[in-house]
């Protein structure tokens, strides 16, 4: 096979694998005669997806909105807290153990409490998306700051730089690739958060749609919802990856030179 062919195949591979899986799924459904209520055929899911496209889009819109708001809040909060933790040993020793403990709590357990506080609707979804995607951002930003080379710090200190100057000249630029790397993880987590909240106690969003469809034994619609979430997740991941490359070109040095 020639070089161009190999390149094309490399990019086609994920699509080919996905297509193969769907084909196997379809064949399995037919061969084993699986009832639609347990596992609908991909073709059936696709048909429902097209048929109910407007409904799915409306619910997806809700989920996307709550996810993105929660995610943006997580970026702002995570960046600030990450900088504080990375810059000050006292903030680090005071807050880090608490953060670890908080992160160990399954976020689904928070939803009933949030519902007591703020009721049903978009707000608990936003908050859940926020709390679940907040942690990786904090940890990554703090790591970025903590791994500044000691020599770099010495150079700046011997020039007479203040702590704030060291933070703005080295710390923040140094933490940026870590921040953007964490966004890819955080956006997927934010989707998990908002969908969990919609499923446990929501009245809109794709999670709510799936829950009500499964209550009606409407498996194809439930699966169509699942696919919709997956597509949104992948798209948002791609957006984050693109932003990452744009903002921190220097961290991808090999690709520009080579």
């Amino acid at each position, binding site marked *: 096979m020639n070089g161009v062919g190999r390149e094309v195949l490399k990019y086609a591979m994920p699509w080919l694998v996905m297509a193969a899986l769907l084909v196997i799924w379809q064949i399995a459904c037919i061969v084993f005669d699986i009832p639609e209520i347990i596992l609908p055929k991909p073709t059936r899911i696709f048909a429902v997806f097209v048929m109910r496209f407007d409904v799915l889009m409306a619910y997806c819109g809700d989920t996307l909105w709550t996810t993105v708001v929660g995610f943006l809040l997580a970026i702002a909060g995570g960046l600030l807290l990450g900088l504080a933790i990375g810059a000050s040993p006292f903030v680090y020793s005071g807050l880090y153990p608490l953060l670890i403990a908080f992160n160990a709590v399954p976020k689904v357990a928070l939803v009933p409490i949030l519902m007591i506080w703020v009721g049903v609707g978009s707000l608990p979804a936003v908050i859940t998306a926020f709390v679940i995607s907040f942690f990786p951002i904090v940890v990554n930003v703090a790591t970025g700051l903590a791994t500044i*080379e000691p*020599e*770099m710090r*010495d*150079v*700046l*200190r*011997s*020039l*007479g*730089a203040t702590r704030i*100057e060291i933070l703005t*000249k*080295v710390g923040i*630029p140094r933490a*940026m690739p870590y921040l953007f790397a964490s966004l890819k993880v955080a956006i997927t987590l934010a989707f998990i958060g908002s969908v969990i909240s919609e499923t446990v106690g929501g009245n809109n969003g794709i999670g709510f749609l799936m829950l009500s469809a499964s209550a009606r034994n409407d498996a194809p619609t439930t699966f169509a919802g699942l696919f919709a979430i997956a597509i949104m997740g992948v798209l948002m991941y791609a957006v984050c990856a693109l932003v990452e490359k744009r903002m*921190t070109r*220097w*961290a991808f*040095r090999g690709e520009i*030179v080579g």
Partner: protein
Amino acid sequence: MPFVELEHVSLTYRLGKETTLALADATLGIERGEFIAVVGPSGCGKSTIMKLVTGLLPASGGDVKVAGQLVTGPIKGVGMAFQNPTLMPWRTTIGNVLLPMEVVEPHKRRFRRARAEYEARAMKLLGTVGLVDFAQKYPWQLSGGMQQRSNLCRALIHEPELLMLDEPFGALDAFTREELWGVMQALWLEKRFTGVLVTHDLREAVYLADTVYVMSRRPGRIVLSRKIDIPRPRTLATTFEPHFVDLVHELRDRIHQEHAQ
């Protein structure tokens, strides 16, 4: 009065309950405009002396004075260059060289207004080390030798009175290293800053320094101070002259004694 004075300076590192005496009793004086080198067996506290002079580490005993002032915290405006060039990968070469201007007074206050002026100054300095064409390149697009040249420019752009060099050529290949000795000497002959070079390369020490200090094994003490009376500018040819070779041998013998003990 010497520009930099160390009087019976000692330093003890503390790590948990363990204490390590890194520097036992260092006394030395560096005149203004003098270039000295500190050599010694590895782990003898050579780099510790640098950190003490710049105030990055407080001395456990004795006095460190720079320009007659007792050093109590990091002294400002010192130029520093390490073996690791520590350039910022998100800045171009000229951006890296300009860093001290954004931090050191009085340049800091003028930086925004006089940016063009400072850029011209940085370009001139980059010119003296042969990097004009690489000013807009990023550090990771430069070779190790070029990175180290930019590092020297960054250490010198604000015309510091004191330049600290911690094995700055240690990671380079022999040819590049010898070439940069020449670059370093030319910069020193032009600006006449006070230089402190920490190195384990004895030829490098003799080539660049007015005085070479030999340190003992840990805990470090200064066991020999040797004036280098070879006229400047020194060249690579100088390094093969008998007197140069004798000096290197003398220093090497003294260090071997340390290893033998």
